[in-house]
């Protein structure tokens, strides 16, 4: 009897003698939407590639990656998001976290991850505050890094530079000294600062005249009134600041009305593959800031990644698939430091210069990616006959010229 008991005890305790076998990475995002699906897709692709090549070298041995996917439902509920993070940390015992999208949700998720002292690599939220936390209270927030997108203030720089190029082209093609700009921005917190900056600084500096500001709801399904007024004002450019489905409505209705003005700015719906169909094929010439575009080669890893993603998932990656880069970044850091211990990994990650699929990533003291040509700039794309092509920065291999209607 005693022998049997000892046997059972030994059998139960034996596995723990080997210690941890896999590196667990939690992928957190809104899984019912493209955002979360791409969070998961990018991570899965990286996991499969790395595991097939033997896994990650940690000190003397090799460890495989195991993903734990959690649906944060952050678009509808912040408590759901923090619960998801809590769960993967305490119940699934993940070593690292990647993902997140909605800025206010990620701020809360960041708190939970920092409480658990888990390295959390953001792949979706752009609020400056996430990085500010790192600068202000380093010891607590040092485990947070953002791999994509650029923070909001850098978005402003991306906008300014790409707009300069668009303005120059309009001036040349239309032979107009002072092009007219109509600002079409959804009514939301994130657009307030950008509208003020555009009206007050950016557009005057570019010698462009603002003919009006229109603010539909982000879920508006009809912008006939706005577009009619914009047409009457003879605008040459419609400067868009849209993140909701109104972006689809704008693209479609501008095309249906055969408007002479071209839409450029931020239009998050226009970054997705489904946009062309959602706008019923009418949204030609719609331009927006983006992370990936057809044929654009920001780094040597861009095209192979986009091709492999398309082959496996039958759609083009959005910037949320940056979880692919996040997993590879972790691999590089772990192999360099020889450990998965968060305390020792943080300084290693801080000093990395990582070649990602959309940019070269180096972190500043806020653990945000450094912005600049040759590092991370993002791109500007335009829909041309069903394809979303890169037109800025012109230095990017595969960039094509911007077209006017």
């Amino acid at each position, binding site marked *: 009897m005693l022998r049997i008991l000892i046997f059972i005890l030994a059998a139960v305790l034996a596995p723990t003698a080997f210690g941890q076998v896999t590196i667990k990475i939690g992928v957190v995002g*809104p899984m*019912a*939407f*493209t955002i979360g699906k791409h969070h998961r897709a990018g991570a899965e692709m990286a996991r499969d590639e790395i595991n097939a090549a033997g896994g990650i070298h940690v000190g003397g041995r090799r460890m495989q990656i195991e993903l734990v996917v959690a649906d944060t439902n952050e*678009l509808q509920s912040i408590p759901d998001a923090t619960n998801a993070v809590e769960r993967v940390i305490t119940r699934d015992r993940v070593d690292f976290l990647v993902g997140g999208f909605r800025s206010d949700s990620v701020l809360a998720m960041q708190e939970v991850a920092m409480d658990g002292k888990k390295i959390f690599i953001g792949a979706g939220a752009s609020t400056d505050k996430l990085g500010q936390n790192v600068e202000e209270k380093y010891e607590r927030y040092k485990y947070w890094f953002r791999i994509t997108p650029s923070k909001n203030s850098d978005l402003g720089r991306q906008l300014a530079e790409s707009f300069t190029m668009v303005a120059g082209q309009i001036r040349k093609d239309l032979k107009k000294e002072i092009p007219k700009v109509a600002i079409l921005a*959804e*009514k939301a917190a994130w657009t307030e600062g950008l509208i003020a900056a555009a009206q007050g600084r950016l557009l005057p500096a570019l010698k462009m005249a603002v003919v*009006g*500001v*229109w*603010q*539909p*709801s982000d*879920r*508006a*399904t*009809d912008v*006939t*009134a*706005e577009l*009619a*007024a914009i*047409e009457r004002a003879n605008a040459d450019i419609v400067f868009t600041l849209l993140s909701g*489905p109104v972006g*689809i*409505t704008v693209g*479609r209705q501008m095309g*249906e*009305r*055969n408007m002479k003005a071209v839409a450029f700015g931020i239009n998050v*719906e226009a970054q*997705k593959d*489904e946009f062309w*169909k*959602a*706008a*019923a*094929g009418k949204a030609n010439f719609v331009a927006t800031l983006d992370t990936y575009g057809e044929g654009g080669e920001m780094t040597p890893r861009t095209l192979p990644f986009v091709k492999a993603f398309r082959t496996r998932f039958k759609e083009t990656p959005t910037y949320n698939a940056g979880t692919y880069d996040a997993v590879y970044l972790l691999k590089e850091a772990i192999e360099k430091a020889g450990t998965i211990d968060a305390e020792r990994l943080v300084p290693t990650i801080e000093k990395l210069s990582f070649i990602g699929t959309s940019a070269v990533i180096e972190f500043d003291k806020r653990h945000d990616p450094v912005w600049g040509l040759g590092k991370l700039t993002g791109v500007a794309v335009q829909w041309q006959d069903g394809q979303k092509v890169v037109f800025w920065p012109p230095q990017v291999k595969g960039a094509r010229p911007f077209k006017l209607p």
Partner: protein
Amino acid sequence: MIADIFVTGLVNSGVYALLALGFALVFGVARIVNVAHTALYMLAAYLFYWLLVKLELNAFLAGILAVAGIVALALVCYRLVIEPVRAHDSAVLIATIALALIFQELMLLSFGGSFLGIPSAVQGVMHVFGVTVPYQRLVILFVAALALAATWYVLHHTRIGLAVRATANGMEIAELMGINVRRTAMTVAGLSAGLAAVAGVAVAPVTVVSPLMWLAPLVTILAIVVLGGLGSIRGAILGAFIIGYVEAITVFALPQGSYLKGAVALTIMVAVLLIRPEGLLGVAFEDER
């Protein structure tokens, strides 16, 4: 701008009239507040999308099948979910809310959270009084007018329509007169669902289809029906035109405030309720039933 407002207001009002009429009918006859009414509109849009884009049927056939499908679904739901609890108003209300949420989640599961666009049946635009009007919007107007005319005809020139109106006027008396109230209620449920489905099929190509698209119209419809007078069918149509035009005026007159159009409509509803609680054409509350 006047021409813009006139045309936009007309199209908006037509759509609202379709939705409000169905809702008012069900409430007037069967005393059911059907929170799932606009959810049926959403289902019709999705079904139309699936038939048109996935199965590649032609627009006309897809439209007819979508409407028929939704009417059938509504009748089944009425029979299985609503009828058993008909006597308890609050249970019926909760049941319709539950149905609406179930439909929403089913669409989220089947089609995902992404936004879908349906190609217009008729492409191109025409210019009327200097206003650019896409043909699809004229289609909506035409379909709305046709559906309203058909409903009017059924209500006033057929026996079943007579039964519906009689039941709306007084359920107990109608029953005493030998009208099968149960069957009349089912007919109205089907007719109301049909109107919602027609609205869904007609409007889907000019709007963005998503699992949450039923929420905003629901609020507007409630405002319209309350404004027009709960239980009054003519009031619902009048309310639809008022709200339709108020929204058009708001977006054209206030470019920086076009997001306010929903709030303006609801404010009008509140104002009317304060002055005349029974609505414009409603009957001051009777309390039997």
